């Protein structure tokens, strides 16, 4: 219906669009939108925390480089928050646009979580305006508390959205009567057993990902010779937050996986590429799971590993995919490899932060003359290189984790209740909107990277020796005023 308006019917591009069925296209559009938004959601949750810490350090110590950091990070926040807000808006529409039957079924149940999230997001949007533009308009105390309000409401917003997602994984709060939800309890999403573990796991993941990304940016600056207080203290703050959150992810991930095992055995089995139900189940690392023959090629097996992880006992029986009817299994290879990627990235980050703190601790012992000196000035090059190399791993882990969570739920949109294909829109043109969104997000993403790089270059200029001291005062918020007049 739509294609005739565009004059490309018959072209290879048109044929490709026609070949894509609505379900595939809708899933692809959702994946692109979620995958894009997830980065900004994590940044929106964690980056305000960083700017608040930096501003608090400034208010306590009066050191100007902390103020410079707070301003730098708040500027990045303003760019990233705006993109996160629009991509989040797109998702709230897309839930209905792509999955109208899902929203019709569940709107009355999970709407409660979204309604509360709406208020949290409202508060966040209000205080982010006050924080970003209010440096010289409200008192320093009020300004810092505005930042704190952004941190709290941003975290609350994420945790509340997580309730809706947890409900899709382990639905509660209704009775299914003739395919329709009856006796609805609006607290259902908050009664989903997966809510708390998922919320903790994701909030920590946001902080860890942003921490190591920030650490990588400043480590790169230091590799280029900029070992000034702004760089060393930024690296230090990032590595404190990164190490704590990466460490806490170990127990939080263990809990999340075991809750999954209890409520979504098919997902856990796919995560571990575990086909055969058995005791003394081994843990399979990597490899290529093959659903047809129900075997894993080239994987590394750790004896008893899976039974130990799931039940903390080698005799624990772990249900395999053989317990799940074939038409209700998620695609094992994707889920398993994404899971290994997530865990592997997390472990790598843990290792990098352990090495960082070891080096710092040894450095402090040998340089006891200056105990307050951060590792920065003395940090060896190889450590900085490792930090730069590790900087994308946190976001990689987040994306992989969402693949585990959402692809592992398939073929259900509401686990055990509604299949994804039952939920998809009957409207024509999903393949077209999918391509439009790919183009839109590619353009937004590329532009954003361009801007952030430029922002980083300016940091470099401001911080390079011989340049004017960073104009930490009014210039950031007044940039519009400096725009050329009558151009």
């Amino acid at each position, binding site marked *: 219906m739509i294609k005739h308006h565009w004059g490309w019917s018959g072209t290879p591009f048109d044929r490709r669009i026609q070949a894509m069925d609505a379900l595939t296209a809708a899933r692809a559009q959702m994946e692109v939108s979620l995958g894009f938004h997830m980065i900004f959601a994590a940044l929106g949750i964690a980056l305000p925390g960083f700017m608040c810490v930096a501003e608090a350090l400034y208010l306590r110590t009066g050191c100007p480089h902390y103020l410079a950091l707070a301003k730098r990070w708040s500027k990045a926040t303003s*760019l990233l*928050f*705006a*993109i996160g*807000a*629009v*991509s989040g*808006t*797109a998702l*709230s*529409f*897309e839930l*209905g*646009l792509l999955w*109208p039957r899902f929203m*019709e*079924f*569940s*709107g*009355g149940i999970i*709407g*409660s979580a*979204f*309604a509360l999230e*709406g*208020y949290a997001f*409202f*508060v966040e*949007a*209000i*205080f*982010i*305006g*006050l924080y970003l*533009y*209010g440096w010289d308009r*409200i008192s320093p105390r009020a300004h810092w508390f505005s930042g704190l309000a952004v941190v709290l409401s941003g975290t609350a917003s994420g945790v509340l959205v997580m309730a809706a997602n947890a409900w899709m994984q382990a639905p509660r709060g209704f009775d299914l009567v003739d395919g329709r939800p009856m006796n*609805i309890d609006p*607290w259902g999403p908050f009664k989903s057993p997966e809510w708390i573990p998922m919320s903790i796991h994701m909030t920590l993941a946001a902080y860890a990902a942003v921490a190591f990304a920030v650490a990588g940016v400043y480590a790169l600056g230091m590799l280029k010779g900029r070992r000034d207080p702004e760089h060393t203290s930024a690296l230090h703050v990032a590595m404190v937050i990164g190490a704590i959150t990466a460490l806490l992810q170990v127990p939080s991930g263990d809990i999340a996986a075991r809750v999954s095992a209890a409520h979504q055995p098919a997902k856990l089995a796919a995560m571990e590429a575990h086909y055969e139900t058995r005791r003394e189940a081994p843990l399979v690392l990597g490899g290529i799971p093959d659903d047809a023959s129900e075997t894993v090629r080239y994987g590394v097996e750790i004896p008893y590993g899976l039974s130990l992880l799931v039940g903390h006992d080698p005799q624990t029986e772990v249900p395999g995919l053989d317990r799940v009817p074939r038409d209700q299994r998620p695609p094992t290879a994707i889920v398993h490899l994404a899971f290994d990627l997530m865990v592997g990235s997390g472990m790598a980050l843990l290792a990098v932060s352990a090495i960082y703190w070891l080096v710092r601790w040894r450095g402090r012992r040998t340089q006891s003359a200056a105990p307050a000196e951060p590792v920065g000035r003395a940090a060896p090059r190889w450590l900085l290189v490792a930090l730069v190399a590790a900087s994308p791993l946190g976001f990689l882990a987040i994306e992989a984790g969402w693949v585990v969570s959402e692809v592992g739920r398939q073929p259900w949109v509401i686990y055990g209740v509604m299949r994804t294909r039952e939920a998809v*829109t*009957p*409207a024509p*043109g999903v393949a077209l*909107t999918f391509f*439009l*969104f790919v183009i*839109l997000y590619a353009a*937004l993403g590329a532009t954003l990277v361009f*801007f952030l790089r*430029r*922002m980083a270059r*300016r940091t470099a200029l401001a911080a390079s020796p011989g340049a004017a001291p960073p104009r930490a005062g009014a210039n950031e918020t007044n*940039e*519009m*005023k400096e*725009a*050329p*007049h*009558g*151009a």
Partner: protein
Amino acid sequence: MVREVALAGVALAAVVAYGVLGGADFGGGVWDILARGPRKQDERNAIAHTMGPVWEANHVWLIFVIVILFTAFPRAYAELSIGLFLPFHLVLIGISLRGGAFVFRAHGGYVDAPGQARAWGVVFGGASVITPVLLGMSLGAVSSGLRVVGPLPLAMGALALAICAYLAAVYLTLETDENQGDLRAAFRRKALYAGTVVVALSGIVLPLTYFEAPHLWAGLTSATGAPVVGAGVLAAWTSGGALVLRKFRLARLAAAAQVAFLVAGWGLAQYPYLIYPSLTLFDAAAPPATLDFVLYTLPFGLLLVLPSLIWLFRVFSRARPFSP
């Protein structure tokens, strides 16, 4: 029964808030792309300066409408999503480009690259023109069987655009410094132009409902609808007159009231339909427990949001005016 009506009222109030606040931000984009003459950079700076701190908060009203819709009226949300699949997608693209272009331009620091700033300005302005038209068309489609391309939706799309431009110009007369007489005069002139277009388009839309959406016409001329329409007309004349007399605060108040009455009048005339003629709000409503949840949490949510919102507007009001 009462719950459904109360929540439909909440949704309508949120549409009004989005129109009065978010609409002005779209209008800002319209005037950005239309800026001409020697003062154009000053005008653009004033628009960016005014929008900067508040546009994201204003935008949340739209999300609030969507959330109320899918929580309290999930069937309506599903039907709208199917029926308005393409226009809603275009709205999303418009919203994304508008927001993205605005921050890219505001934070790019374009002292050294005015050409790039202009390019982002065009994206920002273009998206600000297209999006309200599509939103107005969607409102029109809701009143005429989800038919997007028709006389009434097209007229309502044009009216929405004109209203956004009008609101923005009226608000901007107050966002300039006292000693910037010519900038304020420029926005006053723009407001008078846009106001004339609003009146003209209203004069087209109203009779159009008689032919295209008789239920709207009946509602607008009924005992409940007519007073609201009357109040809207009164507010329109007041805001226009106040502009002529340079009573800018009164003009702002009356312009906001005018839009509020206009949207509220549409909503009342639409009653009891969410989508005319296929779906009433009673057919579309979620179970009572859900409606109660939304209604009982509403006061707490507003207790958090409204004082913060008022503080935001106070901090960035003319107390510390913009001077280029």
